[in-house]
Structures are given as C-alpha cells and as structure tokens.
C-alpha cells in the first residue's frame, strides 16, 4: 500500500531533500511508527500525529491511501 507522509519543521530533515510531503510504500499491517521508522524519525520526536486529519498515534495500523502528518512541539511562548 502507499502512504503519504507529511512532516513539518525540523522533522523534514528526515525526508528526502527536506521536502514536506513524501509517498512511501508500506507492507499491509504497517503502523504509523513503522512508516516513520523507514525515514529514521526517532520515535520520541513526532509529538503530534494525525492520520487523515484525525489525531492518531505510533501504534495506529494504516490503510492504503492514508495521509500521516506529524510535527514536534517545541517549548517557548
């Protein structure tokens, strides 16, 4: 299946050519964490994860065509 991965800010460093959006082939049954592992994203960095615009988590099992979005929450305000 094909998953769209959107990483924002400093997490873009883990995508090819620091793009924001990337497609990834994934085996059936893959989780959000499995897909992010393939890009080398440390598991403690993406603090907010959405799948198809709904809040999700690393253990969520993905389906073909899903869109994963993630970013790190940094202190300061």
């Amino acid at each position, binding site marked *: 299946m094909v998953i769209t991965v959107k990483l924002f*800010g400093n997490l873009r460093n883990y995508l090819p050519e620091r793009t924001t959006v990337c497609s990834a082939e994934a085996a059936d049954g893959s989780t959000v964490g499995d897909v992010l592992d393939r890009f080398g994203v440390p598991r403690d960095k993406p603090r*907010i994860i959405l799948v198809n615009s709904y809040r999700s988590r690393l253990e969520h099992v993905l389906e073909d065509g899903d869109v994963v979005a993630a970013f790190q929450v*940094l*202190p*300061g*305000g």
Partner: protein
Amino acid sequence: MTIQITMNEREVEISTGSTLDAVRTSFKPDADLLVLNGHVGDGGESIAEGDEIVLLRRGEVPDAHELESLLVARHTPGIHGKVKASRVGVAGLGGLGSQVAIAMARMGIGRLVLADFDVVVPSNLNRQQYFVDQIGMRKVDALSETLRRVNPYVAIETHDLKLAPGNVHEVFGSCDVLVEAFDRADQKEMLIKTALDRLPDTRIIAASGLAGHEPSETIGIHRVSPRLFVVGDLQTEARPGTGLMAPRVGVAAHTQANLALRLLLGEEE
C-alpha cells in the same frame, strides 16, 4: 440647504455654511477637542460636504456604541460583524497569549475566553504585556485590567486555573478558534491533543519554534489539517543560550492573531 458630513462616525446633515464650532454646539456642546479631517481645529473652520468630524471631551470614556463606531472606522470595511459575532479562546497568557488577547480586544472580538493559572513575575516583562505595577497579580486579572483600558466593553471570560484534559472542553467548548499560547512543550502537547479530541468544531492555532532572533519571515504558518495550524519555524526552541525575545515572540503572536482573524472571516478554509 444642507450638506452631509460624518460626525463621530455617524452620517449627519448640517446647514450649509456651518462652522466647526456650530457643529459642536448642535451635537456635543461639552466637547473640548475638535478634530476635522484628522486635524485638531479651533472651531472657526468652515465645514464642507463629506468632511469627517470627531468631537470629544478629554478624559471622557465614550459609550459602547460610540467607541465601537470609532474603532470600526479604522477596520477594513465589512469585517466587524463577523468579528463581533465570534469567540476566541486563549490558553496561556504569557508572551504569546497576552499579545494575542490585546490584538483581539482592539479588533472588537465578540467574546474572549482567557485561561492561565500563573501570576505576573518580573522575568515576564521582557516579552509579555504586563507592567511593573502588576507584578504579583494573577495574570487573568492583570490582563483583564489592561484589556478594559483598551476597550471597556469587550466581553471577557477569565479562568484562573491550570488547564488539563478534564477541563479544556468546559473552558473552551464554545470557542470558534482556540489559540494555544503556552510556554512549556508538555502543556502545548496536552492542549493540542485534547482540543483535537474534544473540540470538534473549534479551529486550533498552536505555536512551536519562536525563540531567539532569527529572521521574522522564518515564522511561518503550517497547516497540519483543516482544523490545526502551527505558527513558528518548528525548529528554534527556547533553551539555555536561545532565549525568548519580545520581537520574535511578538511576530509569532500577531501571526497567530492574524490567522485567527482570517479563520473567523472564512479566508483560510
């Protein structure tokens, strides 16, 4: 014969050949500050069709309608109705939240819902909209005091409490837009997650990466979903050696405020 002029933002008709002093006598005899087309007058000026006159008494607080008219006169036409009908929540009244709240009050937002559990301490003054004489006050009280000096008629709802998953809906459930304005990352994360889960009809504007003095234009808007936006560079965190500075925090705060306005106007769907 009459001419039409604008007097304290209201269209009125006056006799041709009237002077500024005559207008004062007719509409506001106790006014001691006469402004004709943006310039202070002495009363002897002749008034022409289309002139704009503001008559004020120094130190007098305008009534709600008058102040609204005067403030709205400087807005882009057509936006006030939507802004006045809107509710904006601000979670955390520090460098971001205090400035967002002031911008909202100056815009004439319909209702401001403010939440913070903290008090004003001296270190806040480097970037937060508080004053020396407010040190020690609850932030919700200090900021409300300032907001009422800007606009005594804005509806302000304050919550002096620590936000947690169990009370976010109770505090912000009625808001059209919620501005996440915390300092600590764990609080930001809690609020964003809870709002995503519990406030399905509220748009969320979070902030992440606004420390230091990197170029202003690096403060961007990241549209994570139709309901979640993040303002900041998502890279520069506050940490030893990289502080929180008034200018860049202000850029982020007003980027949040402007985005809130655009969302309320339906311009960022």
